[in-house]
């Protein structure tokens, strides 16, 4: 692990991220814009899957997912900027690993929905009750994404990242 950290720190791109004073704040701002859009879209979808907001047609709401994926892409890039700039802050930081694990759970959960439940669920009409499995997927998604946000916020307080 320490060898990987040292290797990353020695790369030109890592040096640039550390030395250009505007890159870090810019990446942070992008990360926050991305998290707002991502959680807004996915959060509303999760609420709908959990059975709230029953009048919103779920299939139509799902058309916003490409925007959530775009926001996620933005956060992968800005997040990678932090990671490459200061890998030593994250490699041994328990909060970062918990964030990564939460992200994996959110991703796997979304994949289960898209593969196994999307076709049937997205065609549902207004007033049709959500199956229990779909409600669980919505609840797990919301918990997992809030956990991603929580551990991300805890990076400076539990570990010592900034």
């Amino acid at each position: 692990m320490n060898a990987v950290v040292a290797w990353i720190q020695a790369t030109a791109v890592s040096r640039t991220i550390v030395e250009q004073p505007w890159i870090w704040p810019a990446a942070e701002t992008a990360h926050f814009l991305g998290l707002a859009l991502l959680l807004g879209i996915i959060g509303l979808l999760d609420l709908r899957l959990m059975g709230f907001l029953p009048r919103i047609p779920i299939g139509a709401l799902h058309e916003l997912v490409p925007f959530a994926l775009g926001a996620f892409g933005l956060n992968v890039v800005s997040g990678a900027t932090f990671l490459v700039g200061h890998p030593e802050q994250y490699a041994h930081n328990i909060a970062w690993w918990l964030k990564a694990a939460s992200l994996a759970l959110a991703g796997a959960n979304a994949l289960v929905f898209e593969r196994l439940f999307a076709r049937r669920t997205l065609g549902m009409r207004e007033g049709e009750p959500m199956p229990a499995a779909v409600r669980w997927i919505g609840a797990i998604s919301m918990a997992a994404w809030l956990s991603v946000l929580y551990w991300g916020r805890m990076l400076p307080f539990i570990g010592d990242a900034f």
Partner: protein
Amino acid sequence: MLADLLAWLEGTRVATWTRESPSLWAYPTVLTLHTVGLAIVVGVSAVVDLRLLGVARRVPLATLMPAFRLIAWGFLLNAVTGLLLLIADATMKMRQPVLYVKLALIALGLRCTVLARKEIRYGPVAPTSTVSPRASVIAMASLLLWAAAITAGRLMAYL
């Protein structure tokens, strides 16, 4: 006079607790809740704005009315947590010009959200309907203002 007031605010029990308590429930949790509120306010507003701009057109506008209640709760959460974060470092933060820029952007963003709600409430209710050029302008302004407010908030840590 103002300096005295700010020093007094900073010295209150709740401000001291927010700033100095080693508990994860103090500063870290207040900051986390502020981020959750930000995601609710800006993220849900963005969904409404995107719909007004013609994305996910099959969502009937009227069904989005509950979104404004979510936005209101998110805003309340951030008014409370924001106030806590502000009084915890009142002297320093009240001297930052970017704070006032952020507050102005929030006021304008909120104005757009209220206007968007009016457009949806009194606009056409048929599914797939777009509203009006006026609604598109409001939606675009809302997206830009909220994004700018987040940027100003982030910059408070640097300027």
